[in-house]
């Protein structure tokens, strides 16, 4: 599971919409998800496949049904890998600035 796939998967509004639907209520079938989108079944399947390949959606079988679950771990990994890194630097820079200003005051 690499970052490229996650960023590419997230770079599409329909796929982000699908993730939001799953965030509201998890464990849905293709038919349920399809009913909320102006799109063919095949189109929704294609988008779900991209999300699944990126690890953002995980499917589980329940009897005869295939249920789709939102998996937030790849987003968490990106957060830990990228967001924390840059926001921490900014916080550190501000802390340094405060320190410097107080030193010279």
């Amino acid at each position, binding site marked *: *599971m690499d970052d490229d796939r996650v960023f590419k998967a997230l770079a599409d509004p329909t796929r982000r919409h699908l993730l*939001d639907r799953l*965030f*509201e*209520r*998890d*464990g849905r079938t293709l038919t349920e998800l399809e009913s909320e989108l102006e799109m063919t079944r095949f189109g929704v399947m294609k988008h779900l496949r991209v999300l699944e390949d990126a*690890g953002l959606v*995980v499917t*589980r079988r329940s009897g005869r049904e295939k249920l789709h*679950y939102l*998996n*937030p*771990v*790849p*987003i*968490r*990994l990106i*957060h*830990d890998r990228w967001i*924390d*890194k840059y*926001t*921490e*630097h900014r*916080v*550190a820079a501000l*802390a340094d600035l405060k320190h410097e200003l107080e030193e010279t005051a």
Partner: protein
Amino acid sequence: MTTMTAQATQVYSVFIRATPEQVWEAITTPEFTTRYFFGSAVETTCEPGTPWLGWSADHAQQLVEGEVLQSEPPRLLRHTWRALYDTEAAAEPFSRVTWELEAADGGVTKLTVVHDELEQAPKTAVSVAGGWAWVLSGLKTLLETGEPLVAGEETA
């Protein structure tokens, strides 16, 4: 859109560059869990019918209690879960956690955590919803780098 959505079945999955045996050890021994599981020490013999407990690192406070339901090392571990760290969640009935480990191509293990039977435990459902992603991200970082995930602590 509601922000406090609490699902009765939650699924979390991550690929870790390690063998299923290494991942198994990391999820069942306190030496590992204290470094990624909110600092908590997991105590379990993995024998069905015995306790699965989560302690604060100093063992002063019990954070989670449960019982091992099923154990097939290094493939599957299932136990019950009651959160004691929150009084409202502690009053709710037990839910269930299943760890599935699956060897994948390229020397990686797919770890899937399913936290379900949360229908009667909405407070617990909310409290674990953000936590599991953080735990699995930390576990991956620990096993792949040997270092615990400490959000930018050393950058200052």
